[in-house]
């Protein structure tokens, strides 16, 4: 292998592969954490709403002022819907899944498609070109899917 190809391989591994892998893993964890929080909060709010509705419908004075429960019964579903909308806005579920999958694909490419030092110059060069092309295609595909996902979460359409 030439000095340039050897240097590029080292540079690429650190600046592209490891950098992207760290980012995908960190961001997937972030989305997974918030996805769980939003789902739990939404569920708690819906449960609260149903309790409030039941108390108001039963006229159960022992539970406190009925006006308060009426407000709870009306507001909790609205808040639950708002939390669900926030979850969609951030694309937590889709982003987590896509980042995890891309990280796995990237690790697989790095482990099995990267050129090895024992290759002859021409063979190394060919393997390097294939490797970089495969990695960049994977990342481009992930970007396009991200644009698609985030373009669908609200009103306007994504770039073509």
């Amino acid at each position: 292998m030439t000095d340039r190809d050897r240097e590029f391989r080292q540079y690429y591994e650190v600046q592209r592969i490891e950098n992207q892998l760290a980012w995908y893993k960190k961001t997937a964890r972030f989305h997974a954490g918030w996805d769980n929080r939003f789902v739990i909060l939404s569920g708690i709010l819906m449960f609260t709403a149903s309790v409030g509705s039941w108390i108001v419908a039963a006229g159960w004075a022992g539970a406190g002022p009925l006006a308060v429960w009426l407000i709870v019964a009306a507001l909790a579903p609205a808040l639950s819907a708002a939390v669900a909308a926030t979850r969609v806005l951030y694309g937590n579920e889709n982003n987590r899944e896509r980042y995890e999958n891309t990280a796995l694909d990237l690790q697989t490419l790095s482990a099995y498609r990267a050129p090895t030092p024992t290759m002859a110059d021409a063979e190394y060069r060919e393997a390097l070109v294939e490797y970089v092309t495969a990695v960049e295609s994977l990342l481009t595909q992930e970007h396009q899917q991200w644009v698609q996902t985030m373009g669908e979460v609200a009103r306007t359409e994504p770039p073509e």
Partner: protein
Amino acid sequence: MTATSDPRSTAQSYPAMAADMEEADRVLGSALGEADTLAGKLQNRFRFSELAIIYGGVAAVALGLASGLSEQGAFSFVEAVLTAGLGALAFISGQLRWQRRWLRRRWQAETLRGERFLFLARVGEYAEADDPARRLRQRVVDIERMAREVQQDD
């Protein structure tokens, strides 16, 4: 989607690529930085407007409820003002295309980031170009033009 750190690097650590790395920094540096910053700003604007509309809607429901339960007209007035404000925000967000511009600029930043590696590896168009640095400069112009095709946004 993206790694946050800039892959610009110390050319000294890679002497065989030093000249190309400096050229890539020169050609891509400001374009990538600008696209990245603009994408971040547009993302914040879009998300702020969406969150304001979502939770402002909840506040409007609460005010409507308070208005129904009490005799005070102030609640109705505030609700009307809030609803009008949210409507205006939704209109502005739609007109200024914050979401679309954000996605465009993020796409531009990520494409430029990838272009750096293709150039340094001499892959694709750069493998066959007589002057890879010139080809890179042309790519930056093309990518900027594509990012602007949706609308003028600066």
